[in-house]
């Protein structure tokens, strides 16, 4: 299980929406064009594959920043509180 910050820059509105929806199935929408996702190896491969199929490789870009466990503690979040999905239980 790894924690990734995924950012994207997509030239076309329709494709951007597709990429947004794809990422939403895997993690938390943090900011515009930024997601935080917790992925198992299998999910990572799956997501990567789906994104590759959706984007145009010469115009769009998607970046996965993998967060190491040590870096995790160096993250500071200001402002709006976020609940990251995929880390623990969800009690409703």
């Amino acid at each position, binding site marked *: *299980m790894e924690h990734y910050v995924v950012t994207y820059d997509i030239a076309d509105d329709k494709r951007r929406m597709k990429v947004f*929806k794809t990422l*939403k*199935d*895997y*993690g938390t929408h943090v900011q515009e064009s930024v997601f935080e996702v*917790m*992925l*198992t*190896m*299998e*999910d*990572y*491969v799956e997501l990567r594959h789906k994104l590759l199929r959706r984007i145009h490789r010469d115009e769009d870009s998607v970046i996965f920043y993998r967060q190491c466990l040590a870096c995790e503690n160096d993250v500071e979040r200001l402002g709006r509180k976020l609940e990251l*999905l*995929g*880390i*623990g*239980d*969800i*009690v*409703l």
Partner: protein
Amino acid sequence: MCLQGLLLEEATGQEVGYGYVYYVASAERRQVLFDESLRETALQALAAARAIREAGEPPPLSSVPEAKCKGCALAERCMPEESAFLTGAQAAPRRPTPGSNLGRTLYLDIPGAALRKRQGRLIIEADGQMIKDVPLSAVDQVVIGQAASLSSAALSALSDLGIPLYLMEHGRVRSWLQPNWNKNVPLRRAQFRFVELESQSLAVAREIVRGKILNQRTFLQRGNRERKIDLIQSVVERLEGLAAAAKEAEEKESLRGLEGLAGRLYFSGFAKLLRQGEGFDFSSRNRRPPRDPVNALLSYAYSLLTKDCINVIIRAGLDPYLGLYHCERNGRPALALDLMEEFRAIVADSVVLNVVNRGIIKESDFEPVFDGIQLKDGGRKRFFGAYQTRIREEAVHPVLGIVPTTCGSWRSRRAIWGR
């Protein structure tokens, strides 16, 4: 991959000379040439796989190819080190590796809520409003605490992904949806044969009761470290004697007697560990229905534990209804109860003690039902949170996440050897 190439050749009629393997971990792409010797090996492997399928069950691993098992997604299921240990080829298992199933639970306890699927997400609605939107990839287990409506699309998505769903009502596990339940008939048969043999099942039953009593003892001792109550000290000593007696027991009936006696002693000690006053007076265990707050908490904790034991047993491919120590009764998951005995004190009771002594659950969190008492909505959620925290703690320095699977594997292996 060579086999895939051969299939492609067959389907398209064109020659497929090579393929690529992509390694995600190292982001490497390697070309693989399908030469004669590789084709030969692939066909042999195919024949071997067919033979295994004909035989009905996979043979135990004779040697552990260390490098290959490390990091393998199936290691949790094949348990190569445990098998090697049981065949005497290797010393005690060192792992276990955490499996891909982390037990992240979606606990839904809103009356009248609806669970639906939209794309790769679960949508939870109440009163026509969406209250939560959860990626399916973030859930390993779903527990429904109160009647909710479920869409068939959501159910089939859960089945496809192998996510079990549990329905609880009035604090008991009522039913579950278990994807791919027990496809391994030979294993289940071996389990039935194992249970039939009185001497074998007695040996396991002895260990269960002994383990339970020793854990009760440990739990009391731990609680008494600061408090130094004489009564608990004497109970601890007597439990030790009972555990030794359980090891020698000649039949299950006498084991049940020992267990009952130990239970009464243990709960008299447990009562002393609870913070007094606050309406949490506890004298002895009662149930169906529980008549005081502490008993209600205990009952609820046990049913959560039952759920987890059922989960582990089913994942091991065994039948949760056929137990070794608990006798058969319609609708009673006997094997889950067997497995659970050893964890009652250290997992469930410790959560109860924690929430009571720290004031996480208060007397106002309970409501009367019929002639008993039960936890109210908000309290149930907080209690569930506390229980999950406890499970997590253990998963980090491995006890629950691992011991049950190890136990499960032990028993399953023994069941296999037991033929």
